[in-house]
């Protein structure tokens, strides 16, 4: 039976380095993805994820299981990501939203030849890529806190209570935040939404 996150962290506290590796393997992927969607840069997302894990490791001696491990982990990640986004805001403004999405895209590492193999219908692939780009841009345009809430809600599937603790707001405020975010996304993605609704 797999040990719980809290148990693993308590084992790390007791000096078991192997438990830290297990936690790392359990959360590196969701954490890197969350941070990647926050900062929109793969390398930076990995650097931030490393920083999150190292902070968890440094705090092992003082760890008290007062909250869920994921609440603690994603609170550190959210704070680091928001600071990073604020630091890079000026730099990000210089990058055109229409810049070709290649290396940093989720599927951007696909090479042209692979694309042809995987997608016999290249036109269909381009349509799909345009949809994804539109979705990514819609998420990017959300205010920071709304974006964090959507990412934690949709991609990490955390419950409202946990997200509200991570974002340090009430559950009621979180629900309003999510509603506003979905409203914005509904408007930004109107053509795609209309397609879906028609189907």
């Amino acid at each position, binding site marked *: 039976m797999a040990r719980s996150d809290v148990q693993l962290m308590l084992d790390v506290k007791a000096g078991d*380095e192997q438990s*830290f590796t297990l936690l*790392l393997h359990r959360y*590196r*992927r969701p954490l*890197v*993805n969350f941070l*990647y*969607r926050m900062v929109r840069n*793969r390398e930076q997302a*990995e650097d931030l*994820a*490393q920083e999150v*894990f*190292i902070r968890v*490791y*440094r705090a092992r*001696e003082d760890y008290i299981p007062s909250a869920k491990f994921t609440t603690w982990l994603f609170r550190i990640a959210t704070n680091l990501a928001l600071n990073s986004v604020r630091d890079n805001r000026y730099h990000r403004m210089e990058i055109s939203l229409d810049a070709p999405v290649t290396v940093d895209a*989720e*599927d951007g590492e696909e090479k042209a030849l692979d694309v042809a193999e995987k997608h016999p219908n290249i036109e269909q692939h381009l349509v799909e890529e345009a*949809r*994804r780009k539109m*979705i*990514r841009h819609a*998420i990017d345009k959300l205010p920071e806190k709304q974006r964090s809430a*959507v990412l934690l*809600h*949709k*991609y990490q599937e955390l*419950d*409202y209570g946990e997200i509200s603790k991570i974002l340090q707001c009430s559950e*009621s405020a979180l*629900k*309003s935040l*999510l*509603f506003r975010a*979905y409203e914005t*996304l*509904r408007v930004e*993605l109107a053509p*795609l*939404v209309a*397609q*879906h*609704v028609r189907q």
Partner: protein
Amino acid sequence: MSCSRMEKKILGYVDGRLKESERLEMEKHLSTCAACRMRVNEFRAVNVLLGELPMIEPSAAFDIRMQARVAAEPAKQSWWAWFAPSPRVVLAASMLLLATMWIGSRTDIRMNTVDIDKINQNMSVLENYDVISEFAPLSDLSQQSPDDDPSDFNQSQQM
């Protein structure tokens, strides 16, 4: 339930995170409100669209870098380690103790009561120094040599 009250619950309904009583209340409202039904469908569509973004995989170097960073972290000492004296502190404390003992053992530096009495006697003379130094007869005497002629003294008195 009014449409404005729906706002906070609409996403919970779309996600299936509402309590049974809330869900039933919502469905009752949706059966009579076309606008809210449309909103629910649109939010469902947004949810599906967000799910179209694929996940990325951490790079192969991620674990290696992480292990290197963890290995570079200094080992934490326990609270009791605070009491373990460092060699430098032990050396400094020993030297201080030896110096104190050496100074304490020097008997010629110690002051006995006789020395203190002598200082007290000299102090009384020093306290009257101003009176003595401004006393005119004494100052004149100091300028005259013991071989001076007393008649010179009388002449100077007459002048």
